[in-house]
């Protein structure tokens, strides 16, 4: 009984406490670099597209709002022919970022993406791809992958031995 009364009193005292509200948009809240906002596709340190169109983000997405189509350039480097995120379905859970093996897909601390038409919430690759490495500098998937792409032959990846000479009988 007393605790109820004390609760009422304590709550009443909050009338004189400092307000916690941030008066958006005049004031902006601080969003950490790892905040889960608008999704982008990043580039590797060499300026190439990081996305290798492995479909893992699409598979991880719980609302199935990511669709893409893989294709390859003449040198065998795989990339998405098109990449679409339906942000009107996205729940910004960040599972796509967790699933991404190349750090290509990243969530950014940008939340200001309201539209009057829902159709405008559908982002294509040209709306998603940025000219930077995002949160993860330095990593380039193709430097460790075993496939050869233009400018990198077999055996030239990190921790790779030169290709085996098939005509040698030495063990």
């Amino acid at each position: 009984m007393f605790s109820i009364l004390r609760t009422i009193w304590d709550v009443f005292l909050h009338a004189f406490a400092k307000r916690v509200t941030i008066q958006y948009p005049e004031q902006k809240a601080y969003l950490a670099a790892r905040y889960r906002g608008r999704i982008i596709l990043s580039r590797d340190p060499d300026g190439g597209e990081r996305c290798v169109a492995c479909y893992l983000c699409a598979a991880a997405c719980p609302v199935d709002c990511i669709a893409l189509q893989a294709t390859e350039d003449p040198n065998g480097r795989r990339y998405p022919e098109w990449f679409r995120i339906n942000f009107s379905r996205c729940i910004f859970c960040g599972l796509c970022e967790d699933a991404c093996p190349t750090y290509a897909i990243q969530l950014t601390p940008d939340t200001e993406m309201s539209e009057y038409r829902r159709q405008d919430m559908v982002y294509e690759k040209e709306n998603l791809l940025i000219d930077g490495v995002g949160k993860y500098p330095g990593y380039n998937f193709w430097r460790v992958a075993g496939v050869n792409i233009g400018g990198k032959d077999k055996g030239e990846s990190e921790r790779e031995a030169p290709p085996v000479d098939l005509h040698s009988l030495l063990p």
Partner: protein
Amino acid sequence: MPKIHIDGRSYDVAPGQNLLEACLGLGFHLPFFCWHPAMGSVGACRQCAIKHFKDEADAKANGGRLVMSCMTAAEEGIRISVDDPQVVAFRASIIEGMMLHHPHDCPVCDEGGHCHLQDMTVMTGHNYRRYRFSKRTFRNQYLGPLINHEMNRCIQCYRCVRYYREYAGGADFNAFGISDHVFFGRERDGVLENEFAGNLVEVCPTGVFTDATLKQHYTRKWDLRWTPSVCPHCALGCNTSPGERYGTVRAVFNRYNSAVNGYFLCDRGRFGYEYLSSPERVTLARQRRDGVRADLTPEAALAQLTQAAAGVAADPPGRWIGIGSPRASMESNFALRQLVGAERFFAGVEAHEWELDTRIAAILRQGAVHSPSLGEVERCDAALVLGEDLTQTAARMALSLRQAMRQQPLREICDPLKIPHWLDHAAREAIQGEHGPLFLATTAATKLDDIATHTWRAAPDDVARLGYAVAAALNLDQDTAGTVTAEWRAAAAEVADALLAAERPLIVTGVSSGNRGQIEAALAIAAALAVRGKHPAVSFVLPECNTLGLALLGARPLPEGMDMVRFGLAHGAIVVENDLFRRAPAEEAKAFLAQLDQHGGHLVVLDQIRHATADAAELLLPAAGVTEGSGTLISSEGRAQRFFTVAAPTPNRAESWSWLEAAQGHTPALDDMVAQLCALVPELEPLRQAAPPATLRLAGQKVARETHRFSGRTSIDAAIEVSEPKPPVDPDAPLSFTMEGYAAQPPAALIPYFWSPGWNSPQAQLPYQQRINAPLRGGDAGVRLLEQVAGSQFPCAGEPPPRFEPKAGRWLIIRLYHLFGSEVLSGLGRAVGSLAPDAYVALNPADAERAGLKEGDAVRVEPDGRRGYQVPLRLLPELPVGVAGVPAGFAALDGAGLPHWGTVTAEAPHA
């Protein structure tokens, strides 16, 4: 039934299995690499280790020793442990070893998502590479447009080379190098020659060999929408699972059916799907009026077809004819027959071939012979092939026959040595090069020659005579045995002895030689064997996916239909999925179209692809391909199998039967069509059981076509319209177009794809089987229509044809078959089309020399009374003298009624 003890619990298992098979059959998750259900065990990878206890005391004391489960027989009372910490650790260390050199590729590897290595790595719990040194690398090879090579990913399980060389009989692929440097590939870059090389894609447990056609439009297995389908590219009716995404078919996977294709497909069946997106597809309805072509909306097209259908009904009888097709489903042919009437329904098959087709249908319908399934072919132990180049005309049967030829050596060599048949390399070592009796009597060399006991090359009539000679040799009570066909007496005696000695003799013949005598001879042999107390099987090879179905449905021969137009008895024709220029001599087809035009007649064509007939059509309607519609096909075995659409319906495409039904004001429904068909043709009644009806619900649900991981459903169409529409509904199948549906195993005819928890690779089919290599749970898909009737009289077999006599300056022009190119649809595909040969005419070198012709010369091949064509000359030493070969599928000569006498002359230089 042996009782085995696994981790203290007892299980009954089927006899004759090894422990790996037994454990997998019981649902244990035991990892493996080198073992394959069809290829047995070699114990190379050491991945399937288990603990084997001496006795109960040993098991209690936790003693035991490591053994490879694939190399140990599941014998009565054996005690093993799958979960023992020691074996679990051992298996983890094995996979860690395999992963030492495995590249960091999964995101860009086409195998990812249906990779056996991924599954096994997860299953054993290995997840971090401790080895810090560099990975060995290989350079890849170009293996052709069908298969991609990425050698870095290899784990040296040897499955590929075992499959390619030992199972499929290929020679141009091998393992090279030693130690850490073992390389699997060809001696140098080049297209893999074997017709079954595509199975490497499913045999390889990782991404060394991947589907190069899938790579063109790559999609993960989990993102594909699958459906149970049947291969439309030959008459064997292999079960397939085509996978579709964004409206196009991306890949075709094998769909296990123990009675038909088992684990393997031929390359035409696996890669032929690309024709679906060929520029030759009919995508829009079109009309041609006064020489002007215009595209039609689906509604306008249907209105015009309705008008035509009304014309059919209103006209005095006989004013419209219908021309059916052996590559259209039963329902499509039946719908056309119902529309125009049985009397005005004609078979869109070359007249000469149609005679043979109807003869074979009559033989099977009477129940005179046993028509074996491919599974039975694989178990036969002696075979005689009359006139069929099986690898090219019925490829999957050639693969089965190759396995069948191991039956006799396995029985006679391995069984006395007590070597189990699944102990593959021990058995192969014991057998060495032995093969069962296989006799090939063909007109040209075949790819089965390497395992044949004896091969004979002869003109089609002579092949038939050999068949008659064998029959005569088997007929003891006939004094005249072999007098008519005396030249074959020695050969016939050899074949007859072998067939008599066999437990399950098989005779294979077909229509590809266009020789009636061969069919009658096969029948005579079967009759004679039956008299001698044998139960022979006779396999008739037919050319197209529903040839037998059309023949069973019954239709009048095509020339009679053309005559009706010529004599003004008909002024309209509806052609379903057919090109008349391939079914009748070009000049006759042209005359037929001209006469239709002349009489102010109408030509309505429904087809998937464009061709000369479609171009001439007044109304052309886009028909659905096998992956885009539903229907039933009857394979050459006499097995009715249902296929269902994988693509969501669009107004611009429908099955031919669906167009025809809609035009008559009916609501098209597959089950109604089947019911009507069964009511009218009672002997097709079992066809109803080919698949469950569309009303079937399992636990209140349909079966899901999409995998439960299917991605992007709220995004795929968002660029067009962000509001998601209601998913399409298939009125003809108990299958949904979405991922929602029955999750457990459906009836075999409704399995869209194989997946089971922990198993994403093609090995996921194993838990669907009753036990390893047995039929699927609930029975295999499809229903056999034509069973042998006990005591049925064999139809009269006729007289042997006269001996073939070469004629000076003239040749018997026959058709030579090619897996790639001889079938119209698959030949339109990008990759398969690129492997198809260009037109040629082949002559025996002696013949060519006599005529003064050299290899590569431009020559004119001209069947008597038909138009001639200029083609380059090829020399083919195996071809008998007096015979000229042209490739089947060469449109200009397909309708010429080959074999046919004609001339091959040097093209006259331009005057």
